[in-house]
């Protein structure tokens, strides 16, 4: 036996001398491939560092000349006045207030909806509801803004009998709706991943379903829900177009401070409004970069805390026996009491201000009745009440989706015709079609995905397959997180200042494609990473044990099952890129053009921007703007539905 195996070894060693050099060649090839993947991963780091440095370099002069304190706490923002002043305090306050308002609206609705979807809904309802909520996430922000401008502001103006509906309230409602899908899907994940035994145990000792949900399941999922809310906050803080279109954009602090019917201006809309006009190198230019830095810092704090909470959650899942609650029990109690009292006070104040006198009285009466009557109420009744509220939340969410969709479809359908889809616009977009805009959007997203996909997939492969967790991966991952949380308008600012002006590329297709690809890069990296991680380690080990090289293993064993995930990520990115306005507004688009661009260095028309201009600047274009909104909506939703179908298809396949 022994001798024989030796012989075998010897034989192998002596067979063709060529095999030695092939081995060397393949080793070289392996190294080469690894280097390529390393480069793509490193690219993410370089990009994020570069964006940060560029922002800092251009924003620094404002801090130097005005002073950090004056810049951050100055209460007057009049950069083009006779005596300009650059105080962004009202803008910061605006951003924070709008976000708080959005959360007040979004949090109860989305948590109610998440509980409904994961605990109460029948499988059939769930099957309809989940895609519907994902659809809500797919609606481009400029469509939300358009809806807000046409329908919501008017509604607010009439129902509150105020001179104009462009208010803090309008912006908050709109942002709340936009944050719904994020919060719902993440907290639904958190609730669904609470171990079954918890629920079964609670039900087994005789608790009602509502007691189980409120006392066991939700507390167990609390960290996940918190992360969901923070992600929602991040979305709200970074949003530009929708806010810009409905908030009135007066740079003031509401007076009195809780006056939700006052116009308001956020950091993002300031960038969106003033970026195109500002002379390069002026103090105003530097001030806008200062605004971008402040915005970036706020979103970084928000997103990093979400990441930290999620990671905490993940680690907790890893070693469940050593559970470390984020908040201790006593602190939770006092926090809860504080939240209850302050919440009640806020509601009372709001009712006192906005509604006729009998509303707060009624509310107070109901409260008193609840306080004394709750002992008498049986658990059954409480459960009924709670479930009604939860179902109500779900119904409201669906109703919102329905209202937005039906408004756009009903008004948009008459505009759709063959001419509308195939002709160029005329008379400032009031007449003619939107063909160049449709194709321009396709050009933009195709270019963006062609740039982002190889880079993103490469970076993810490097992160998952070639490295162990260490300093470099952590660095890269933090970079990706930072890039992910960056508001799209900051990408727009960077693209405009660096690619368009500094590199002298000009407003062009390529500038827009690069800007969009930077924006979707983190999504591609994340989703690819996730799907690679889902491939069982044993498959890799098996392949390597059979003598396959690393690259062979990746190409033949790891990548094939990961492809659905990667494709889903790519399609979602395409959908997101197609609907974005802020990044291309200053880098790639022109309002009207007769032909399609015949080189990468020409500007294009794009659907979201066309809709934005029609909605805000061209009176008398109501048919065409609804038509444009509908086409944009259909395009983006088509991308999203393909992604959802692909994902579901493969989920079922894996399960089956």
């Amino acid at each position, binding site marked *: 036996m022994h001798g024989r195996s030796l012989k075998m070894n010897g034989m192998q060693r002596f067979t063709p001398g060529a095999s030695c050099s092939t081995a060397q060649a393949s080793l070289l090839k392996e190294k080469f491939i690894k280097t390529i993947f390393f480069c793509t991963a490193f690219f993410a780091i370089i990009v994020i560092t570069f964006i940060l440095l560029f922002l800092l370099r251009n924003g620094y002069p404002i801090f130097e000349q005005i002073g950090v304190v004056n810049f951050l706490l100055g209460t007057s923002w009049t950069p083009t006045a006779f005596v300009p002043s650059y105080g962004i305090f009202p803008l910061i306050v605006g951003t924070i207030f709008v976000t708080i308002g959005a959360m007040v609206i979004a949090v109860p609705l989305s948590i109610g909806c998440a509980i409904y979807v994961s605990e109460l809904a029948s499988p059939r309802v769930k099957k309809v509801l989940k895609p519907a909520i994902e659809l809500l996430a797919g609606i481009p922000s400029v469509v939300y803004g358009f809806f807000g401008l046409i329908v919501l502001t008017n509604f607010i103006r009439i129902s509150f009998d105020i001179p*104009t509906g462009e208010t803090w309230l309008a912006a908050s409602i709109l942002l709340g709706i936009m944050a719904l899908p994020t919060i719902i899907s993440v907290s639904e994940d958190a609730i669904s991943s609470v171990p079954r035994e918890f629920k079964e145990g609670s039900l087994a000792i005789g608790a009602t379903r509502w007691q189980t949900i409120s006392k066991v399941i939700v507390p167990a999922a609390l960290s996940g829900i918190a992360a969901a809310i923070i992600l929602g906050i991040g979305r709200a803080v970074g949003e530009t177009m929708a806010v810009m279109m409905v908030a009135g954009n007066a740079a003031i602090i509401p007076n009195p401070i809780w006056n939700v019917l006052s116009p308001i201006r956020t950091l993002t809309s300031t960038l969106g409004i*003033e970026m195109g006009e500002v002379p390069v190198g002026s103090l105003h230019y530097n001030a806008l970069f200062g605004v971008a830095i402040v915005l970036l810092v706020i979103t970084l704090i928000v997103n990093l805390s979400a990441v930290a909470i999620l990671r905490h959650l993940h680690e907790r899942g890893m070693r469940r026996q050593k559970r470390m609650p984020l908040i201790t029990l006593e602190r939770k109690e006092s926090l809860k009491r504080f939240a209850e009292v302050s919440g009640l006070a806020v509601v009372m104040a709001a009712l006192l201000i906005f509604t006729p006198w009998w509303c707060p009285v009624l509310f107070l009466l109901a409260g008193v009745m609840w306080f004394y009557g709750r002992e008498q109420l049986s658990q059954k009744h409480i459960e009924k009440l709670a479930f009604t509220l939860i179902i109500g939340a779900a119904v409201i969410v669906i109703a919102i989706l329905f209202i937005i969709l039906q408004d756009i479809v009903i008004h948009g359908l008459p505009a759709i015709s063959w001419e509308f889809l195939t002709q160029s616009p005329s008379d*400032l977009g009031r007449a003619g079609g939107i063909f160049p805009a449709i194709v321009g959007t396709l*050009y933009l997203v195709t270019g963006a995905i062609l740039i982002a996909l190889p880079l993103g997939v490469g970076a993810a492969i490097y992160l998952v397959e070639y490295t162990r967790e260490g300093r470099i991966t952590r660095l890269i991952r933090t970079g990706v997180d930072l890039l992910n949380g960056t508001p799209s308008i900051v990408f727009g600012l960077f693209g405009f200042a660096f690619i368009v002006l500094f590199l002298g590329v000009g*407003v062009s297709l390529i500038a827009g494609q690069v800007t969009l690809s930077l924006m979707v890069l983190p999504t591609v990296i994340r989703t690819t990473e996730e799907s690679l991680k889902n491939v069982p380690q044993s498959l890799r080990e098996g392949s390597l044990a059979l003598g396959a090289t690393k690259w062979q293993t990746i190409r033949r064993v790891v990548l094939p099952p990961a492809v659905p995930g990667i494709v889903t990520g790519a399609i979602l990115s395409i959908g997101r890129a197609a609907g974005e306005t802020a990044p291309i507004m200053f880098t790639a688009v*022109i309002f009207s053009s007769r032909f*399609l661009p015949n080189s990468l260095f020409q500007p294009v028309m794009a659907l979201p921007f066309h809709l934005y201009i029609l909605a805000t*600047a061209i*009176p008398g274009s109501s048919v065409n703007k609804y038509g444009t909104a509908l086409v944009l909506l259909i395009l983006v939703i088509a991308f999203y539905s393909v992604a959802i179908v692909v994902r579901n298809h493969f989920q079922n396949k894996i399960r089956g």
Partner: protein
Amino acid sequence: MNTMNIKKSSYLLLTLSLVAVLIASIAVAGCIDKGTNTAVATPAPTVPSTVPATVAATQQQTPAPVSTTAPVSSGQQQTISISGSTTVLPIVQAAADKYMAAHPGVNIQVSGGGSGVGIQAIGAKTVDIGMTSAEVTAAQKAQYPSFVITTVAHDGVAVIVNPKNTIQYITFDQLKNIYLGKITKWTEITGAGVPGTNNMIVVVGRDSASGTRTYFDSTVLGTATPINTMLEKNSNGAVSQTVAQTPGAIGYVSIGFLSNDVKAVPIWFNNLKIVAPSISTVVDKSYPFSRDLYLITNGQPTGLTGDFIKYLLSPDGQKIVTEQGYVALTT
């Protein structure tokens, strides 16, 4: 093994479908692109030199009936881009529509943004022509010495309110006090009021990039800044749309943007007389809120840029100016 096969086949299918979708979208775009281009600009730039001279000649003669000096050969697709003032935008867009109808190979791309955007863009050379309704300041001229400024039309700035407002006229001082926030109710103005509302005034103005705002602020407010609750809109169209939708609103737009949706308010200038904004009152200078509209180029305009500006200044071009509701140069 079976599952592996399924996975492999679906993997193949997926990649194929993704690639197919991408290629299809590019191909469709490209095809139609080519289709439109060839439909309008018949001989593509790659016309071989062996084409008989007669054919080339007929092809060159068919278009371009308007301007014989057109430097635009029919064969090539030429593109210029224009951006800036939303006041000048309708004139340039209408002129571009007409010009492009006469010159099938020409593509004139037009964008708004405001006068500040126009000056910034032409200064940074990201466009071929910048539009502005604000005079180029000495500082800007010094910064961009290559600017050549062409006046293309006259314009008046009209004060507008919602049609529901009963206002008959407004004095210069009242206007100033409204924009400074010293007058906040319509009832403080003789004859004004919006029935069915609380008569609060909603002050609507333009963003800081606007030439119309620069003009309005400096003429009406002097060096003061408008009240900070003013709703800032990014175009003439947006102001007129907001005023049309908001019963208590007041705003200002170029007279080219007057329509039946809004009510132009006559102004009582310093106890002299009450004048309504219109083309004729701007022409006879009895309405003093008037100004010029400019196009800016880098250096003397040549080629397509020059030809387009020449067209705007021609009688045909100036007729478009009048059609759009502005004041032509010749009158």
